[in-house]
């Protein structure tokens, strides 16, 4: 059985069936490794050999199908762990105390990562 949202992707892009199948395999593998994984275009692009822009487009469409939710993460510039994760950029403060390195950081767009996470519905479809 397909992962949630992938039947819709196939209907929307009948000419990209092979690419969508490769993306589905990559996401399935990612979730099997860790269901709370960060899912993002750069890494999936490397795994599937698809273009970053195309992967990004597919991920946005999966979000519309309630298979993925977007997240923004503030990454510690020193130790590279995620300091804080929010649903929306506006929820991030201008300064914060970092639980990763113990220092204080000022907002820097270079330290912000945007990615997707699987919704419970997507995880359920992966189990069935």
């Amino acid at each position, binding site marked *: 059985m397909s992962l949630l949202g992938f039947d819709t992707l196939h209907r929307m892009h009948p000419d990209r069936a092979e690419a969508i199948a490769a993306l589905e395999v990559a996401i399935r593998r990612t979730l099997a490794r860790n269901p709370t994984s960060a899912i993002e275009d750069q890494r999936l692009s490397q795994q599937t050999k698809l273009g970053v822009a195309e992967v990004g487009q597919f991920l946005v469409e999966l979000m519309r199908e309630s298979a993925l939710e977007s997240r923004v993460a503030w990454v510690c510039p020193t130790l590279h762990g995620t300091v804080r994760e929010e649903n929306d950029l506006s929820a991030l403060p201008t300064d914060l105390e*970092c639980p990763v390195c113990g220092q204080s950081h000022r907002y820097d767009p270079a330290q912000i990562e945007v990615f997707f996470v699987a919704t419970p519905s997507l995880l359920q479809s992966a189990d069935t």
Partner: protein
Amino acid sequence: VPTELPQRLARRIIQAQGKGRLEQLLRSRRNRLGLGRGEIQVTGTAEQLEQAAWRAVADRHLAITDLAALVDEIEECGAKHVFLFNMTNAGAAAISYTSLGRFQSPPNVPTESFYADQPSARRTYSVTRNGRTFVKQLHTASYWERDESRSSESLDERIVVSRRQRVRAVNVFNIDPGARTAEIRIDRVRNRDDSNLAHEEFAAFLDSLAPGLHLREHLEPLDIRRAFPRIVEARDETFMSIDHASDASARQIFASRRGEGHGLDIRDHPNWRLHGSDYVRDSINVYWLIREGDDENRIHTIVRGVRFAEHGADVELAKAYVPAHITEAELAHVIARIRHFASDAP
């Protein structure tokens, strides 16, 4: 009761993220006195709760000593660099309530000077609590902070303006003569793990306790490095979102890509294999899990060995940085567990 002091105490609790604990205090008073909802407000915004607390004191529903006791716990137990020691034989013989008894007792009734926002002098008090000798010092600490509104940057010029910030700081020397253990809790002063500031504050606190206390003679730092691999193995009582360790050929960092509360423990990553005696760490960033029934509380600490120079000789001190304002019981739990993992106990 003059309202200024209760207001200051209530504000201090709120500023220290103690809203939940203030709610708890007000609720317990309301229940004990059988008061109605209109008589003591126990929920609301931080501002409303702050007002509710000092009004409860003004209405004599809450003793100012109860409010002060909560401030004491908040000031003494969290947002600290906690240095951990065992007492040497010389220390056990020399350090006692009597030897530190030259310090005055804290006031029975809260006073303006004891709870001043910026104490005018370094004031040290000693008291015995539950068989422990407890020395508490208040003073005004300072640090430099960049003033963003007056700093500027253009193509050809950078102007950085720093302003000296002065804040109330509370340091504590806590001795358990029975267990022959001691800890020095140094106020972190600012909202970060500033090791230079911690070092300066630690040295100044030690100086102020002399001649009753000699660091090298009386106290033996906990051998914290031996605790690291054991803490890493203690999966049932710790959570780690980051780990950095090295062996003889490589340094490795594993850092969770998800924020706190979302990701898996980094030790569950399939490639994490940083356990065992081959891997060493300079510090460990760990959440201690404290469970009460179905509730689980996570206390964040960064535990490390830090060099401290005293009379030309370097010693490595065991330090646990505890950023949050936690309760006495939570701090005691964390310290006991770190001590356990640094000890010979199985």
